[in-house]
Structures are given as structure tokens and as C-alpha cells.
């Protein structure tokens, strides 16, 4: 083999090996950031990829030749109603989504993006409206609801204590009216809406509310907790009566008498539709069909394909009972929507499935919410502020004192200089805990004697840090001053400068890069310091390491939050390092190679 070829092959092997090492080196950091964006349930089952949002079919609507399949992750699927072929698709990437169709737009309400509209003919065209709402904890919003009435859109959100209805004008694109839903059952949570004549019926977690839209007054409230203990999830009107349903059943409600007149179904009623005299109730296992005229009831169960544990649909499996969340009518053909994006066309007369489709997978979930949750659970802002404040001040003080001392050591051959530098080196050999134990008891003792608090204060820990990092800084800085040619200073002395002036005007400017490098190093070290901060800070002056330690101790299994906290603790120093790495690398290597 020729020499140069061999050399190139070896070089290539080294190159590959180097990138392998680089990958291994960076993997833990990448894994930390990646895990902080995952859902904890995925971490706990050891799943590596990010999860897709659940694409349960939430609403199915027929609109001319099109079938709209709307899923809980904010997915909007426009299908041909006969072939179930996808014609257009968009995703709103929302939480607790609700949909509404009008002539030109698909309206999407959600907890995190309030109100969005998508153009029916081109779903890429969309617009978002931020509504004037209080700052919710979005994870606690149960549902959002929109209905339309006479060209206006009514929007509300299910959040305990939020009792308002917003009237949104789609033409002017702004909120035109706000209704207060305060009632005698307050505080309540709004679950569903139904425009009914010139009234608005509002399903609450405790009952049913009748709002007069003209006067904006609450007309009546009916307590239905005995029928629907956690609220009215769905509301429909039929023959002058109202059907209310929730997780305990579906009931016929007479608004004039103000009470439930008939129980239609007991059990979890997921979907509710009315058609003529018939009431369709979607349940956990298929759907029920009631004929109010004849009082007959039919049960339909074999509607959907089965699903594997990981959520993929098994093709050609037997039809089995599954949740029916929504349905739409087309004569005898019913369009049924279920979990995992499953859609079936069902012929009620023949009692068989005549077509099926599947909505797209949900969007990948990147859980930024971990950071919000983490921030909500711990006072991370305080820790960050404390860390920046304490480490920054300690760095400044340590640099001032170390620069002075290092200059003195490198330029003046004063008596005691040798033993001074020996002591400085010797302090590095003493375990930090050796300083900590007496310092701790001294602080406690001093406070006891003078009543002057030191432990748990800013100046206490800043003093400890500054003094603690001075010896090492002197050791590095001495090399920088030694590298500055003496002749410059001698020339200045001859020109009549005092030693202080020489230091200030000649030596100091030349040593600035070294001081910056050492300063950053000290800052990184102080940022990293756990033991002293653990013992010497209090709840108000706690730095990040101590705060994180307390936090992760309380959230042992919330790896997502722990990794989010770890990332937040790392990012500031990483950015600092990345910006100033030229100084650090140059400074530290210069000091070390000479030392």
C-alpha cells in the first residue's frame, strides 16, 4: 500500500474516532435537554422518541360534499364524504380544543391559543385571536367551548371560577360583549353552551343556567348535581326540550317545568346528537339510539377496528365496541368518530360498517409546559437572581483583591513574599469542609454574641465566596503579570510615576484579558459551589444548587421537571462560556503552561 494512502486511511480512522468521542461527550447534555421536553409518562416507560398528541376524534361534521374530522390535538381533516379520502389537513396544535364551522371558516377554540380561524378552502390560511382573558394555568383548563348564533361567536372556557361568556364578532374580529355568568351556584365551571331561541343555555359543572342574551341577565339556574355530579358536558335541543348529558348519563330536561323528566341512559355519555325524534348517545361501547315517540331503544356496538397498546389501529381485525365521541348523519348512514383517529361509516338499517378512515397522527408533543410547571413549583427566578448576584459580586471582589496581591507578588520582592505564596498554595490542599465547619460555627457564634445576622445573608455568602476564591485567582494571575515585560514599567517609573500609578496605567491594562479569563473561571466555580451555599444560605438567599437540591428531593419521580431545572441551571453558564470562550481558553492555558 502506498505511503500516502495509508496515511489518509489512518487519518480518516482517527477522524471517525474523534467524532465518535464527540458524540459520546455531548450525548448526556443532549439527553438532558431532550428529556426536559418530554412527557414524564414517556420517560417512565422508557420510550425514547417524543410522543404524538392523542388524535381522538372530537367532532365530525358534514358540510356539503365534505366531511370534517376534527381531533382533540387540534387536527383539522377535510375528507371527501363518500370515499373518506383526505383533501386538506391542518393542525392547530391546541389543548382542550373545540370546533365550529361556518360558511367560510373552521373556528377552533382552545386553552392555549384562544380562538383561531382556518379558511375552509385552504386550511393553510389561518389567523389567531387572543381574547382578553385572565392568565390561566393552562394545564387546569378543562375545556373550551364555542357556539355560533346569528352570526356571532360565543366563547368561554372551563376553568374553576371563570364565569364569563364572550361574544366575538367574526366580521369586526373583536369581542363585542361580555356576559357575567355569576349565579347562586357560584363558583362554577362552564362546560357547554347551547343557543336556544333568544337565550343561551349554559351547562355548568353544577347544573344548567339560562342566560337572556338581550338583557345579559341570568334568568334561571337549575341544580342538576344529583343527576350529573361533575357537570353537563353536552347539550342538545329536541322538540322544545333539552337533552343534557355527562359522564353519568343522558337526561331529558324540561325548561318550563325546570326539572328532569326522563332518564335516557345511565353511564358515560361521550357523544350526544339529536335528529328528528331520535336521540343518539355515544358511549364507551358503541352508541344508543332512542326514539322519543315510540320509546324504543336500540344498541349498536360493533363499529370500529381494534387498537394495539401503542395506539396503532389493527387492520382487518374484527369490529369491536369502542368509544363513540361524535356522530353525523347522512340519511341512514352515520359517521362515527372514536379514539385514535378512527372513523366509521355505519348503516343503521343494515347494522354494518360500510366505510372506514383514520385521521392523521397528532403533532409531536414538545412539552415546553415542563418549564412552566417547574417554574410554578419552585421559586427558580429567585434562585437565578441570587446566583447571579452572589457569584457576580464574589467574582468582582475576588478579582480586585487577587489582582492587587498577584501584582505585588510578581513585581515586589518584599520580605514574606515567599511564605505568602507558599500559604496560598497550601490553602488549596485543605478540604473545603475544613474551612466550612469552623466558619459555620463562627457565624452562628458571632450572631449569637452581637445579634448581627451573618448566616443566611447576602454579604455573608459573598464574603465567603470572595475570600475563598482569592488564593486560586492569585495563583493564576501571577503568571499573567509575570508575562508582562518589566521594561515597560521601569520606563514609566523613570518618567516619574508612583508605584500605584504604574500599576494602574501600565500593568493593569495589559493584564485585563487574564483578569477576565480568571474572573469567568471564578464565576463558573462559584456557580458550581454547593456545600457552602447549602450550609450558609437561607430560604431568601438560596442559590441554584441548593434550590435544585431541595426541589429534586421533593419531586423524585418527575424526571421531566428535574431535567428542566437542570437545563435552566446549565444554560446561563453555557451561554457565558460560549460568548467568552476565546478569553477563557487563552487565559487559562497561558497561565497553566507557564505555571
Amino acid at each position: 500500500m502506498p505511503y500516502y494512502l495509508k496515511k489518509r486511511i489512518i487519518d480518516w480512522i482517527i477522524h471517525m474516532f474523534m467524532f465518535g468521542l464527540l458524540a459520546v461527550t455531548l450525548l448526556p447534555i443532549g439527553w438532558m435537554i431532550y428529556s426536559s421536553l418530554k412527557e414524564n409518562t414517556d420517560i417512565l416507560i422508557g420510550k425514547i422518541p417524543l410522543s404524538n398528541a392523542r388524535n381522538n376524534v372530537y367532532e365530525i361534521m358534514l358540510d356539503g360534499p365534505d366531511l370534517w374530522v376534527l381531533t382533540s390535538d387540534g387536527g383539522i381533516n377535510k375528507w371527501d364524504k363518500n370515499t373518506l379520502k383526505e383533501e386538506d389537513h391542518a393542525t392547530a396544535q391546541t389543548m382542550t380544543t373545540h370546533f365550529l364551522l361556518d360558511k367560510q371558516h373552521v373556528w377552533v377554540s382552545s386553552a392555549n391559543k384562544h380562538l383561531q380561524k382556518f379558511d375552509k378552502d385552504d386550511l393553510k390560511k389561518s389567523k389567531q385571536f387572543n381574547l382578553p382573558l385572565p392568565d390561566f394555568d393552562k394545564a387546569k383548563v378543562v375545556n373550551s367551548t364555542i357556539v355560533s348564533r346569528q352570526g356571532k361567536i360565543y366563547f368561554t372556557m372551563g376553568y374553576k371560577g371563570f364565569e364569563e361568556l364572550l361574544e366575538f364578532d367574526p366580521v369586526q374580529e373583536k369581542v363585542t360583549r361580555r356576559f357575567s355568568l355569576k349565579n347562586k351556584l357560584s363558583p362554577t365551571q362552564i362546560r357547554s353552551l347551547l343557543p336556544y331561541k333568544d337565550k343561551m343555555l349554559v351547562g355548568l359543572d353544577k347544573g344548567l343556567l339560562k342566560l337572556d342574551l338581550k338583557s345579559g341577565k341570568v334568568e334561571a339556574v337549575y341544580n342538576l348535581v344529583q343527576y350529573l355530579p361533575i357537570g353537563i358536558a353536552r347539550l342538545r335541543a329536541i322538540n322544545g326540550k333539552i337533552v343534557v348529558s355527562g359522564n353519568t348519563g343522558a337526561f331529558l330536561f324540561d325548561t318550563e317545568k325546570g326539572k328532569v323528566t326522563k332518564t335516557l341512559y345511565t353511564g358515560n355519555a361521550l357523544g350526544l346528537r339529536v335528529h328528528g325524534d331520535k336521540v343518539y348517545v355515544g358511549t364507551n361501547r358503541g352508541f344508543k339510539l332512542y326514539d322519543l315517540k315510540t320509546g324504543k331503544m336500540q344498541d349498536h356496538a360493533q363499529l370500529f377496528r381494534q387498537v394495539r397498546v401503542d395506539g396503532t389501529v389493527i387492520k382487518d381485525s374484527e369490529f369491536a365496541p369502542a368509544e363513540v365521541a361524535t356522530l353525523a348523519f347522512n340519511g341512514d348512514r352515520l359517521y362515527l368518530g372514536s379514539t385514535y383517529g378512527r372513523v366509521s361509516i355505519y348503516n343503521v338499517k343494515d347494522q354494518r360498517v360500510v366505510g372506514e378512515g383514520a385521521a392523521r397522527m397528532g403533532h409531536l408533543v414538545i412539552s415546553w409546559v415542563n418549564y412552566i410547571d417547574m417554574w410554578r413549583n419552585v421559586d427558580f427566578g429567585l434562585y437565578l437572581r441570587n446566583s447571579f448576584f452572589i457569584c457576580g459580586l464574589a467574582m468582582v471582589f475576588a478579582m480586585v483583591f487577587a489582582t492587587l496581591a498577584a501584582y505585588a507578588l510578581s513585581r515586589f520582592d518584599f520580605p514574606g513574599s515567599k511564605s505568602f505564596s507558599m500559604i496560598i498554595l497550601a490553602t488549596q490542599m485543605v478540604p473545603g469542609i475544613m474551612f466550612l465547619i469552623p466558619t459555620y460555627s463562627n457565624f452562628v457564634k458571632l450572631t449569637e454574641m452581637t445579634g448581627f445576622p451573618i448566616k443566611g445573608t447576602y454579604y455573608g455568602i459573598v464574603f465567603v465566596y470572595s475570600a475563598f476564591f482569592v488564593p486560586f485567582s492569585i495563583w493564576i494571575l501571577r503568571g499573567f503579570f509575570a508575562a508582562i515585560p518589566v521594561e515597560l514599567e521601569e520606563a514609566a517609573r523613570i518618567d516619574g510615576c508612583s508605584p500605584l500609578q504604574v500599576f494602574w496605567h501600565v500593568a493593569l491594562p495589559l493584564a485585563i484579558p487574564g483578569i477576565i479569563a480568571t474572573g469567568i473561571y471564578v464565576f463558573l466555580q462559584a456557580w458550581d459551589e454547593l456545600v457552602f451555599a447549602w450550609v450558609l444560605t437561607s430560604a431568601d438567599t438560596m442559590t441554584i444548587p441548593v434550590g435544585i437540591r431541595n426541589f429534586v428531593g421533593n419531586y423524585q419521580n418527575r424526571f421531566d421537571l428535574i431535567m428542566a431545572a437542570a437545563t435552566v441551571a446549565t444554560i446561563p453558564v453555557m451561554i457565558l462560556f460560549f460568548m467568552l470562550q476565546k478569553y477563557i481558553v487563552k487565559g487559562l492555558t497561558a497561565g497553566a503552561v507557564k505555571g
Partner: protein
Amino acid sequence: MFKKWWKRAVKYRVAYLFILPTIIGMLILHVTPIFQGIYMSFLDLSQFTLNQYLAAPFVWFQNYYDVLINPNSPVRIGLFEAARNTAIYTIVVTFGTLWIGLLAALMVNREFKGKGLVRTLFLFPWVVPTYVTGILWGFMWQKEVGIINILLKDVFHIVAEKPFWLIGPNTLWAIIIPTIWRYWPFSMLLLLAGLQQIPEELYEAADIDGASPWRKFWMITWPLLKPVWAILILFGLIYNVYAFNIVIMMFGFGAGFPGEWGDLLMTNIFRNSFMQWNFGVGTAISVLLMITMIIIVNVWFIYYRKAEESTK
């Protein structure tokens, strides 16, 4: 003699002004505490006597006796294991960081595209705070949900059963590997600077003599890097004997006990001092450790001097 000394002191009197703040700081935070610590190691300091520690009973060498000899003393439980772990940990970590750092330094000390970026990326672990390193690797070593076991069993099928990393003898590796990961970039940084100081002519001359790469490394690179690796070994020994953050944060995220294969002297002292309030014993172990370190460092210096003289 004294006159000369005094003259020098007067001539450089400004120097004392310069070092004065440092001296005050060190007196309060370094010198006094050391003597206090040595004094405290002779006291019976428990949670009962801590508040009046100036009046605590002086027990002479009782603490040292308890730590070193007394077979019935509770403070000795786990102390031998901690010392053993610390010794293994220190040596493996110090030389591991040195060798991996050297390997990486040699690899990045070549000409290739994106050299600067690769060097910077290699340095990233060194910026990750040590307590984060502990938390992060504590998470990665988890038996069921940790990425390491997932990679070993589910992805690469190297092992049949997921091993425990944070319980049993494996613990020692579980604390050594993250420490090496955290510190080798720094070794690389210094060694790379050292490599760049070696004149190219030496290698060219060796090439003319037909020296093998292996021989070139041992005859040129290694001896000329001596000032760097000498410092790295010295500071590696000191820092790793006093290692604390990574280990304390890895087990129960700062709340747990590292176990008999993960406990180090520093975590042991910290537990004795700040969790069981046995300050006397804590300082006694610290003093013993300090003496050991001073001996080791001196031995190292003597060896280093000798080696230096023999090369001259």
C-alpha cells in the same frame, strides 16, 4: 541581616498595601478556621455541645481514637469503605481524565475543517455544573428508565438483564464515569496548549531518523508535556479526594445515602458534621485527610524534582 530585611520591607512597602485585603480575608476564612478546626477535632462536639462549643469538653485524642482505632465506635461504620472508594475514585478519575484528555488533545491537534468548533464542543461538559452532572447521570443510571440501560439492553442488546447501577459495586463506576466525563475536557484544554508549544522541528528531525509514531510520542511529546501533566495529576489528586457535589447529587438527588460502594470521604464527613452534628469527628477526619494529602503532595513534589533533575 535584619537591617537588610527591614530596608527591603521599607522599599517595597506598597506591596503590603496590595496584599492587605487578601491577608485579612485569608486570616478570617482560611488561617483561623484551620486552627479552629484542628482545635475542634480535640473537642467533644455533638448536637448538645455545639451551641457552647468554646466550652465543649476537651477530650484530647478521643475523636482520633474513635476514628482510627476504637472497634466499637459508631463513626467508623462505613469509614473504611469511604476511604477505599475515595482512593480508587481519585486514582481512576485522575488518570482517566489525563489519558482521555491526552487522546482527545492529540486528535484535535490536527488540521481539519471545523477544528475550532469541535474543540469548543468538546469543552461543553466542563461547563455543566457538577451538581447538574450528578443529577443528570443519576437520571441516566436509573435501572428501568435510564438511557444507559435502555441503550445497553433494548437498543444494542449488549446485556440480557438491566443491571443496577446505583446499588452495589457498580456504584463505583457510576460515580467515576461522570466525573471523568465532567473533567477530561479541562485536561484536554491544557494538554492541547502544551502540545502547541512543542516545536515542529523536533518531529521533523525524528521523521528523518525514521522514528515510529509510538516512539515519537514517548520520546518527544510525553516528556515535553511534563509541566502540564504534572500539574494535572497534582490538581487531579487534590480535587478528586475532595470530590463531593457529583456524588451527593446522584443518590436520591442530594437526599439519599450513596451506599457502601458510592460513599466518599467528603460525603461521609458531611453526613457526620451537618446531618448528625458530630463536628468533632468530622474535623478529626478532615485533619487526618489533610495530613495525608500534604504527605502525598510532598512525595509528589520530591519525585517531580528528582525527575526534573535527572532530565537536566
